[in-house]
């Protein structure tokens, strides 16, 4: 399996998956089924996580295809620009959906404003992802073009808008202050994320036993904010110097562990077992194993991030 293969496998998840999740969400309004709504929110979170490797594998594929004479680079760039836009909406949808699930735990229900936010963001995501998928198909499938001549004409005049991948890359590498600012913010996001995740998982392992799991879980939105900072700054690094990351084995390990650790943040919110741990309670062995592995994965994310230049070829 190589990078283009991974991209082909994953690229349908944000498109088809989001359509299914939106359909479930709308169906939950019609049927007034709470369980269906919960499943759709969980689905948004999982799809947002999978969007990360879907996007990165696409970027890796683009690097490999740049020298391929059968591929028009301008068509790939259009697809990439659409993917940047679609991925941002997808991650925002996932974050809002997670917040809804967090609210349900705290208040027993999500606020109407948050559910409305998820609905609006997810519909925008479907539109952005449909466009991304369509433009992606045009790279290697000329048979789907309705007007090949018009498509060829468009590709010749691609002008980077302020949201294009090229414009972001130019912003990151064209100013001396951007990279150090992003690095500082990446570390602030890191301690915000790891600090809170560590507290929650240490409680599961048996520390701070007088506090209930619910009490420490209360802090988790701060961790998700930290994750948001790091996804934003991290994506800017990747767009600024894609070769440093996408041809770097340490980066693959970092992203793989990040996905699994991200699923753990979802697990801590949506599964009932951790929530049964009250003040003074000992967590069951399975929950302890989950907590220990989550901590190990987060340490792994940081370790491989720090080792990017030493195991891999960054900088």
């Amino acid at each position, binding site marked *: 399996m190589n990078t283009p293969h991974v991209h082909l496998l994953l690229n349908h998840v944000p498109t088809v998956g989001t359509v299914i999740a939106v359909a479930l969400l709308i169906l939950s309004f019609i049927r007034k089924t709470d369980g269906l709504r919960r499943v759709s929110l969980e689905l948004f979170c999982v799809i947002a996580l999978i969007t990360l490797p879907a996007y990165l594998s696409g970027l890796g594929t683009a690097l490999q295809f740049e020298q391929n004479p059968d591929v028009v680079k301008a068509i790939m760039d259009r697809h990439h620009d659409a993917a940047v836009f679609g991925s941002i909406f997808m991650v925002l949808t996932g974050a809002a959906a997670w917040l809804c699930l967090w609210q349900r735990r705290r208040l027993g229900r999500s606020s109407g404003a948050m559910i409305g936010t998820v609905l609006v963001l997810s519909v925008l995501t479907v539109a952005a992802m449909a466009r991304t998928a369509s433009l992606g198909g045009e790279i290697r499938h000329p048979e789907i073009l309705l007007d090949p001549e018009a498509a060829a004409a468009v590709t010749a005049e691609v002008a980077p808008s302020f949201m294009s991948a090229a414009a972001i890359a130019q912003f990151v590498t064209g100013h001396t202050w951007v990279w150090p600012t992003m690095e500082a*913010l990446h570390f602030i996001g890191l301690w915000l994320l790891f600090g809170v995740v560590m507290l929650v998982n240490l409680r599961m392992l048996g520390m701070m036993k007088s506090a209930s799991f619910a009490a420490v879980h209360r802090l988790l939105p701060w961790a998700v*904010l930290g994750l948001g900072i790091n996804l934003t700054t991290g994506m800017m690094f990747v767009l600024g110097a894609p070769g440093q990351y996408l041809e770097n084995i340490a980066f693959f390990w970092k992203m793989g562990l990040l996905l699994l650790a991200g699923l753990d943040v979802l697990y801590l919110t949506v599964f009932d077992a951790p929530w049964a741990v009250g003040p003074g309670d000992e967590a069951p062995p399975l929950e302890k194993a989950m907590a220990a592995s989550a901590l190990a994965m987060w340490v792994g994310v940081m370790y491989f991030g720090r080792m990017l230049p030493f195991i891999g070829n960054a900088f």
Partner: protein
Amino acid sequence: MSLAVIVSLNVLAVVAVVAVVGYLIDRSAER
């Protein structure tokens, strides 16, 4: 303005925004 000052001001601005957003989300848990 030196690079260090520009970077520091930018970082402070982002941290301030994150703190406000985090506070508002955190407060929503009490309603």
